[in-house]
């Protein structure tokens, strides 16, 4: 199903298809007309996607068919070997983790996984991790340090799960611990916000040396819906909240929250998954290579300084 603002694009695509079919059936040459329409389609796509509102980007970030962490694990890495379990309570399917090769190098990957259909979404709890998921992530940080493997974290979650068991098992505690554990990594760490960077649940695996974000991904302190419910007392004001929160890739680049924006193919990542995955792979390869010359202390120091410096304030009047 197209997103609301994709409807005119889809209508035009259908029209072009119909014209092609008609030309074939009737054995007539409509290639000039079709070329014109294709040019118009390209312009429409570009106009639409160059001028997305923040709320529209939120929808693209959550769009069905957008590549998930697992899609990158299979498409951008080689030989992904999943490792399960937190060694305490269980295995949280909302976080997939394991070993893989990125180009020449072995790496540890910790990804937040939304479902690609309803069944998988239920299995993955819509990408909302329990404490067990963050404990698994911390175990992977230990593994990465021990074997000197760079860490890559594809981020895509509405947030850490707000439930009874999650609270009883110390959701806040494990997020804090994961933030601290990741900040102490002695290896290069790269986060890529591939869809939704939902609050503390995302930051728990986002304390990287370099934080990248896809052009239509978002990263926010709170979802627009929850923000609207609190500040406007109406979740329907999510569009206003999305604007106010400045949660898009370029907003975050300006604020220094992310270091680099990876362009998506025109029409969004969900329209050209392969090309998106290829671009993310290229970006990850370049970023890992740029961090490899740094020694352990320098990597940890850079990460600490990066996060220590974030914030805007001035001298008091």
């Amino acid at each position, binding site marked *: 199903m197209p997103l609301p603002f994709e409807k005119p694009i889809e209508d035009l695509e259908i029209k072009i298809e119909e014209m092609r079919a008609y030309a074939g059936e009737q054995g007539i040459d409509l290639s000039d007309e079709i070329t014109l329409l294709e040019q118009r389609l390209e312009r429409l796509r570009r106009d639409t996607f160059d001028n997305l509102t923040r709320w529209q980007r939120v929808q693209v970030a959550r769009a069905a068919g957008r590549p998930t962490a697992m899609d990158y694990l299979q498409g951008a890495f080689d030989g992904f070997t999943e490792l399960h379990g937190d060694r305490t309570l269980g295995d949280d399917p909302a976080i997939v983790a394991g070993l893989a090769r990125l180009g020449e190098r072995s790496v540890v990957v910790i990804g937040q996984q939304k479902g690609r259909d309803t069944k998988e979404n239920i299995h993955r709890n819509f990408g909302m991790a329990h404490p067990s998921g963050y404990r698994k992530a911390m175990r992977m940080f230990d593994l990465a340090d021990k074997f000197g493997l760079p860490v890559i974290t594809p981020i895509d979650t509405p947030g*850490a799960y*707000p*439930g*009874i068991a*999650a*609270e*009883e*098992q*110390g*959701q*806040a*505690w494990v*997020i*804090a*611990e994961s*933030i*601290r554990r990741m*900040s*102490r990594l002695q290896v290069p760490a790269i986060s890529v916000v591939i869809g939704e960077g939902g*609050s*503390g649940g995302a*930051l*728990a695996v*986002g*304390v990287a040396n370099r934080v990248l974000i896809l052009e239509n991904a978002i*990263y*926010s*302190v*709170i979802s627009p819906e*929850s*923000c609207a419910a*609190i*500040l*406007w007392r109406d979740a329907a004001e999510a569009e*206003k*909240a999305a604007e*106010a*929160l*400045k*949660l898009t890739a370029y*907003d*975050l680049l300006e*604020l220094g*929250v992310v270091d680099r924006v990876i362009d998506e193919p025109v029409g969004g990542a969900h329209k050209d998954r392969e090309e998106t995955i290829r671009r993310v792979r290229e970006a990850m390869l370049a970023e890992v290579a740029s961090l490899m010359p740094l020694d352990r202390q320098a990597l940890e120091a850079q*990460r*600490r300084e990066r*996060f*220590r410096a*974030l*914030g*805007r*304030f*001035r*001298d*008091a*009047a």
Partner: protein
Amino acid sequence: MALERWFRRNRPTRKEDDNAPAGLWLKCEACSAQIYRKDLVANAYVCPECGHHYRMPVEARIELLADAGSFEPWSGGIQAEDPLGFVDTQPYPERLEKNRQKHGRPDAIVTGGATLDGEAIGLVVMDFQFLGGSMGSVVGEEIARAAERSAQEGRALVAVTASGGARMQEGALSLMQMAKTTVALELLAERGLPFVSVLTDPTTGGVTASFATLGDVIYAEPGALISFAGPRVIQQTIKQDLPEGFQRSEFLLEKGMLDDVVSRKALKERLAVTIRLLRAGSVAREREKGVGRAAAL
């Protein structure tokens, strides 16, 4: 002892009225007893009848914990900007200005150096009355600076938290304060200096999910709401009733999340004892002399 004197004193001020229902008399929200307001204030905002802990003003908290005359403020030198140009039902700068006027400080936090029963500490106290104690750039920076200064001056750090979480009006920058405060605590760890957090009602969201729960020792006041997600959010998500006492201090103690629940009257002494015990170790003293990171890990 200074603490005893303080408990006997009556000093209700206008500012303190935010923390307990106004009026000369009030009905305790826990036991329904009629309490004379002055008695409540004189009792450190603890109901004299049932021991219910009311929220407490920042100044009273400092008096409760710092030795008389020892508190030297560190915070107050910086104030928030409006990095997003955030407007909801009113512009963020207006909201801030109103709160600054009303509460007489630049943001939702006070930090400073003090002695606590003779122990040199850095003291962080969050102000829930100021925009819900929310953590934006200024709160995060003041905490980070307090941690760093405490480390440099060889002080233990005590943080008394009260917060609704991250400050939405500063967007992702508030979220980043969770990481900022966390990395700032590393200096204390490297020098083997204790960080003790005291969670008070309410401590939720991004504050709970960062420095507040990274204390070497974590205490909470009785009956405090302590959570990652608020009870309402959880109820909306799971659509069922929450267990009795859910997310309250006593419940979390039972779940293994806290070192202890400590009543307000016992808090100062408990902090002093804890800090002394932690700092008495010879290994800790070696570290304070500058044996670094490797040992601390």
